[in-house]
């Protein structure tokens, strides 16, 4: 029996199952709208682009980003620690299947990024079609190297080759950019694992699955999810003195969770920064409308978290009623989202918004209320 093929089949089933939920959710509209708006704004930006724009820097940055942040899937399960153990040395086909699977993912990621970067390059740099192809090929290879180096447990292979490829761009040798990545790929091949590093691959799978579940949970309830936690002493001390000291039990739990979990405060800050970038790219074109867009995107991800927390919490037997928990979560979410809207509204004024800032804020408030009303 081919273990990889069986696992891949299960993975496909899971993806198809959850895709159906995602596609059926009316919330997808917000994402479509964001993409269309983003594409339009980017086009505006490209039209007004100065030929002296430092595109080499953008390519170099893209090269540096591509090997980073990969979360490879290995399809390893906890039970494999027992049941797959006797076969570890023999299932090379499984390892190759996992490698190929991740190569495809890494390539798609690189191609998506290049779809965005390429129009910028062709407009500002004088490149031959062979050089453009070389840059695209290098980006795919760098992304693959970044992902495979995590699988093989070899650090820095991706970063070193990315720095070398970036240097070649600055040296005016874009045609040679794939070479460092190819060398890194060869190095990874020589130093590849001969048997499955079970615990490492299990940890990779769990991290990657948690990310997949996080995205799916925007659309459908997935109570069993791991949380990534950061201590954040400063933030916690601030809210402790101002809010938590007087807060009831439910607000206390959610306040600390929002401050420390990587999918609450981080999410807001991340989307806030992206929104500011979009406003800058829009060059004053209805920047106020960016506010409801990004507040909506934040709410889309933040609001459903309640159901996940509600299911896993010990609060089920504590004297904290579900209504109290619901009220507490809404209390925090409303303040966070309104705060985000106000900050974005103020930034939009700096980027030239006028009446549209007010309309944007009102729309953002409406969107927040809409999402919170759905939380019952």
């Amino acid at each position, binding site marked *: 029996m081919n273990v990889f093929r069986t696992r891949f089949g299960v993975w496909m089933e899971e993806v198809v199952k959850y895709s159906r939920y995602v596609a059926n959710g009316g919330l997808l509209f917000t994402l479509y709208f964001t993409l269309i708006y983003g594409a339009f704004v980017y086009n505006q930006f490209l039209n007004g682009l100065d030929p002296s724009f430092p595109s080499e820097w953008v390519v170099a940055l893209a090269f540096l980003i591509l090997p980073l942040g990969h979360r490879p899937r290995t399809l390893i399960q906890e039970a494999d620690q027992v049941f797959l153990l006797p076969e570890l040395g023999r299932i090379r086909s499984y390892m190759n299947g996992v490698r190929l699977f991740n190569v495809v993912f890494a390539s798609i990621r690189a191609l998506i990024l290049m779809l965005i970067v390429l129009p910028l390059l062709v407009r500002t740099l004088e490149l031959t079609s062979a050089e453009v192809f070389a840059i695209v090929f290098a980006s795919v290879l760098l992304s693959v190297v970044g992902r495979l180096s995590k699988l093989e447990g070899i650090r820095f292979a991706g970063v070193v080759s990315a720095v070398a490829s970036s240097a070649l761009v600055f040296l005016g040798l874009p045609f040679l950019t794939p070479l460092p990545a190819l060398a890194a790929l060869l190095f990874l091949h020589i130093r590849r694992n001969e048997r499955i590093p079970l615990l490492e691959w299990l940890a990779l799978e769990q991290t990657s699955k948690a990310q997949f579940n996080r995205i799916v949970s925007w659309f459908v309830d997935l109570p069993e999810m*791991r*949380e990534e*936690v950061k*201590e954040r002493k400063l933030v916690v001390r601030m809210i402790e003195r101002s809010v938590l000291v007087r*807060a*009831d*039990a439910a607000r*206390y*739990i959610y306040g*600390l*969770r929002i*401050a*420390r*979990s990587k999918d609450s405060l981080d999410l807001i800050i991340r989307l806030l920064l992206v929104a500011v970038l979009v406003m800058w790219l829009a060059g004053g074109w209805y920047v106020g409308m960016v506010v409801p867009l990004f507040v909506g995107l934040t709410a889309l991800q933040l609001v459903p978290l309640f159901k996940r927390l509600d299911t*896993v*919490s*010990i609060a*089920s*037997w*504590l*004297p*904290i*009623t579900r209504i109290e928990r619901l009220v507490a979560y809404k209390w925090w979410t409303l303040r966070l989202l309104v705060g985000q809207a106000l900050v974005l509204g103020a930034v939009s004024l700096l980027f030239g918004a006028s009446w549209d800032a007010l309309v944007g804020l009102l729309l953002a408030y409406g969107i927040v209320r809409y999402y919170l009303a759905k939380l019952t």
Partner: protein
Amino acid sequence: MLHVDKLNGGYIGKQVLHDVTFEVKKGELVGLIGLNGAGKSTTIKHILGLLEPISGSVTVDGETVQSSEKNYRKKISYIPETPILYDTLTLREHLTLMGKAYEIPERDLEERTGRLAKNMRMEKQLDWFPSVFSKGMRQKAMILCALVTKTPLLIVDEPFVGLDPLAIRQLLQLFDEYKEESAILMSTHILETAERHCDRFVFLHQGVVIATGTAGELREKYALSPDATLDDIYVEAIDVEERAR
């Protein structure tokens, strides 16, 4: 303190408990004993108000979950078999949460936290996150969270799993102190320890209470010699019940 009266309950489409009746008085530590699947956890879930009974009632200190969920829950603390802690809260913050949920005055909470943490050798771990706890530490953290509340009823599900011998001894001492003001219902498979520390026993078999009483009363009921252990009594009780069916 706890009155379970003719409780019929279980899950949707599957009745597990049949006319379960027993009580736990203030100052008592009662052992809930049964084989796997006997209905111990289902009984506990009903007492915690997590399951809706088909019929019958559960009363804690005169309060039912139907009359006031919040007041009812304030009277119960619980140590589950598998520790469940918030990843985002340190142990000290878990204890603060218990203080807020059970409305414990700040000074009392501080005093109890210090004393219990010292007893359970968890002082150093107070500012740690559960993710770095060992299995035993997680269990101790759950025990601290429950004991700090000083509720009239403490429910304990297999408390000794994952604890070292010293921690088990300390826990039993804490139970002895706790029951002076409260009642404790403890579900366990470790009959030897239960025999030494429980005041009474409730034997549960296939969702039915087959016997209740002290070890002496149960020996008498099943005509066993005075040196018969709780293991012997339990095996005999199951045999008698199986033969009768």
